[in-house]
C-alpha cells in the first residue's frame, strides 16, 4: 500500500524538515493540528461545505469533443479546476490551510507568490475568514503582475515587495520563511504548493486530493472505467499531486509535465525532475536546479506558475520509484496548446495547464479511439492573456491565424 510520507515526513529519500530550529516546534504544532483535523468529521465537513458553497465545487469533468475529433486518437477529458473561485486549483489548498489556521487560533496568514495566483487565493480566504494576510512577492514579479497585486490589495492583503536574490518566487519564498521565523508565534504560513518542510507537502496533497477524488468518481460515472492516462502540469506540483494521488494504486499511466522553457538543453527551463539534481530547497529534500556548488539556479518558463527551481518531494519520490512519468513541454508547445484549446473548445486555459494539455495532445494522437486521456486543467487563462498578447505580437506566433 502506498503510505508516504513516514512520521519524519520522508517520501523515500525525499522530503523531511530542513529548517532553522526556530521553526521545528511551529511545524510540529501544524503536524499535530493537521492530524487531528483530518481525523475530525466536523473539520472535513466544514472544508467540503466551503469548497461547495464558496468555491463552487465540484468542478465539472468536461469532454473535449472538437479536440478529440481533430486529433483522431484517444478521447480527451478535462478536469475543470479553472472554474473554481479565483480561477485555479490553488483555492482548494488555501481554504484547507485557512481552516486549519483558524482551528489553531492563528489570525494572520503569511503567503509567498510568484505570478500572484496563490497570493490571490490566500488573500481571498483570509478575507473570507476575517484574517490578516501578508503576501511576499518578488519585486520583479510585482512589476510583471500589476493586476494581481492590485487584486490582492483589493482583497485586503498587504503585498510586501522582496528585493533579495533575483526578486522572483524563490526569493519571495525565502522571505516568507524569514518572516515566519520571526512571527511564528501568531502567524500561519500558508504554502501554495506541495513543497516546503514536512508536513506541508502532505498537507497540501490532502487539501488538493479533492481534484482526483472528484475526477475519479466523475470519470467512472461518465465512462464506466478509469482513464488510460492522466496528465497534469508540475510547478511545485500541487495540482498534479491532488489529481494523481487517488489514482496511485490504479492501473492508470500518470504523466507530470514540467516546463521546458526554451528547451531543456538550454539554460532556460524549469524542468526540475528532468534536469535537476537532489538537494535541499525551502526546507525539503527534493530535486532542484542548482550548480555544482549547490547554489540554486533561477529557472525560466513563459509560465510564471511553473517557474520554480524545486519540486514537491513526493514527485521526486514518485519519479524515483517510476510510478509517475515526468516529461517536459516547451514554451512554444504550451502556447500552441493554449491557442488550440481556446479555438477548439472555447476554453482559455492557464498557460501552466496548457503544458499538460500539450503533452496530452501528443499522447492522444498515438492512442486508440477507445482509450481516454484525462487532463487536469488547473486554471483559467485570463491571467495570461496579456502575456500571450505580447508573446504572439513579438513574432513568436506559433499558431495564430485569426481572420483579422
Amino acid at each position, binding site marked *: 500500500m502506498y503510505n508516504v510520507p513516514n512520521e*519524519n515526513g520522508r517520501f523515500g529519500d525525499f522530503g*523531511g*524538515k*530542513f*529548517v*532553522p*530550529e*526556530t*521553526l*521545528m*516546534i*511551529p511545524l510540529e504544532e501544524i503536524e499535530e493540528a493537521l492530524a487531528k483535523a483530518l481525523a475530525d468529521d466536523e473539520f472535513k465537513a466544514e472544508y467540503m461545505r466551503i469548497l461547495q458553497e464558496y468555491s463552487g465545487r465540484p468542478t465539472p469533468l468536461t469532454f473535449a469533443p472538437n479536440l478529440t475529433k481533430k486529433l483522431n486518437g484517444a478521447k480527451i477529458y478535462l478536469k475543470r479546476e479553472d472554474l473554481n473561485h479565483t480561477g485555479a486549483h490553488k483555492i482548494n489548498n488555501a481554504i484547507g490551510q485557512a481552516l486549519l489556521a483558524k482551528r489553531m487560533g492563528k489570525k494572520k496568514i503569511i503567503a509567498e507568490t510568484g505570478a500572484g495566483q496563490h497570493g490571490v487565493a490566500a488573500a481571498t480566504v483570509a478575507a473570507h475568514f476575517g484574517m490578516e494576510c501578508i503576501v511576499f512577492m518578488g519585486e520583479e514579479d510585482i512589476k510583471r503582475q500589476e493586476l494581481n497585486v492590485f487584486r490582492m490589495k483589493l482583497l485586503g492583503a498587504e503585498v510586501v515587495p522582496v528585493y*533579495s*536574490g533575483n526578486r522572483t518566487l*524563490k*526569493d519571495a519564498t*525565502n522571505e516568507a*520563511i*524569514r518572516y515566519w*521565523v*520571526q*512571527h*511564528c*508565534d501568531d502567524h500561519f504560513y500558508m504554502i501554495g504548493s506541495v513543497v516546503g518542510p514536512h508536513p506541508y507537502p502532505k498537507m497540501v496533497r490532502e487539501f488538493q486530493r479533492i481534484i482526483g477524488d472528484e475526477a475519479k468518481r466523475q470519470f467512472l460515472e461518465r465512462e464506466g472505467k478509469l482513464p488510460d492516462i492522466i496528465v497534469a502540469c508540475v510547478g511545485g506540483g500541487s495540482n498534479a499531486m491532488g489529481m494523481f494521488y487517488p489514482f496511485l494504486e490504479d492501473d492508470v499511466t500518470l504523466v507530470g509535465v514540467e516546463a521546458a522553457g526554451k528547451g531543456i538543453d538550454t539554460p532556460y527551463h524549469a524542468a526540475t525532475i528532468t534536469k535537476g*539534481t*537532489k*538537494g*535541499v*530547497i*525551502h*526546507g525539503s529534500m527534493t530535486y532542484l536546479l*542548482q550548480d*555544482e*556548488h*549547490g*547554489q*540554486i539556479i533561477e529557472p525560466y518558463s513563459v509560465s510564471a506558475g511553473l517557474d520554480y527551481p524545486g519540486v514537491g518531494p513526493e514527485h521526486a519520490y514518485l519519479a524515483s520509484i517510476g510510478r509517475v512519468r515526468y516529461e517536459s513541454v516547451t514554451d512554444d508547445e504550451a502556447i500552441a496548446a493554449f491557442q488550440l484549446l481556446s479555438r477548439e473548445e472555447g476554453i482559455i486555459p492557464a498557460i501552466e495547464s496548457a503544458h499538460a494539455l500539450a503533452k496530452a495532445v501528443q499522447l492522444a494522437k498515438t492512442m486508440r479511439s477507445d482509450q481516454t486521456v484525462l487532463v487536469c486543467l488547473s486554471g483559467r487563462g485570463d491571467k495570461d492573456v496579456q502575456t500571450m498578447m505580447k508573446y504572439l505580437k513579438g513574432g513568436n506566433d506559433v499558431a495564430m491565424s485569426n481572420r483579422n
Partner: protein
Amino acid sequence: MQCLTVTKPMFIPFIVAGDPSPDITIELALALQEAGADILELGVPYSDPLADGPIIQRAAARALRQQMTLQKAIELIPEMRKKGVKIPIIIFTYYNPVLQLGEESFFALAQKNGANGVLIPDLPFEESEPVRKLGEAAGIPLISLVAPTSKKRIEMIASNAQGFLYCVSSLGVTGVRDTLPETLNEFLTEVKRHSRVPVVVGFGISKSEQVSMLKNYCDGVVIGSALVQKIEQLSDRLQKPDEKEEALAEFRRYARSLTAPLDETVQ
C-alpha cells in the same frame, strides 16, 4: 575544542568567507583574533540563506561574486593558520552545498584543512544524525542550535550537543537588533541547566550594552551582522592597498569596543 573549558565568556565573531575578497577574509580573521576572538565562525556564502537577514544576504552575494565556494572556504583555513590565526574555526554553511560536495567529502576536506567544527543552520536535530556521525568520525563537532521556541526540545538538543550550544536570542533571522527579548535571560538559564557544553548566544547582538547584559548568563556571544555590516562599510578601503591597514585597525577597534564588557568581569 570538543572539551572546551571556559573561564570568561567567549567572543565568537562571524564573517563571510570571500567578503569582500578571500585574501581580506584572512586578514579580517587575524584582526578578530587580535581583538580577542575566542572562536571564529566562517560563513560560507549561499544563494538562498533563509536564516539570514539582509546584511548577511548582501555579504553572501558579494562573496559569491568572488567565486567563493564551500570548498574554497574550507581551504582558507590552512591559509589563515599560516598567517597566524590560532583560534578554533567553525565552518558555517547551509546544508545544500554540503550535499552537493558530498557529506563524506565535506568532512574529509574539513578534517584535512583543520576545521574545528561545523554549523548547519537548516539541519535541525532530527535530520542531523548522518552528518553528526560523520563529524564524530572525523573529530569535527556539529554545533547545534536551540531557539526560544524549542521548549521541550531543549533537553534533547542540549543533552546531545557537541562543542558548544548555540542559543538563538530571539525569533527571526540574523541581523542587528536594538533590543533583545526580556525573557532571554530565563531562556539562557534554562538551556544552561540542560547543557554539558558551553552555551553561547547569538542573533541580533550588536551593542556592547547587550554584551554587557548577556555575559552573566552565557559562556559566549556570537556577533555576526554587526561585524559584517562594518566590513561592508569598510569594503572599499579594505581593498585599497594604502588604506587597508588603517581600515583593519578600525575594524579591530570596533570589534574590541563591542566586546569590551567581556574582559571586565569574570563570570
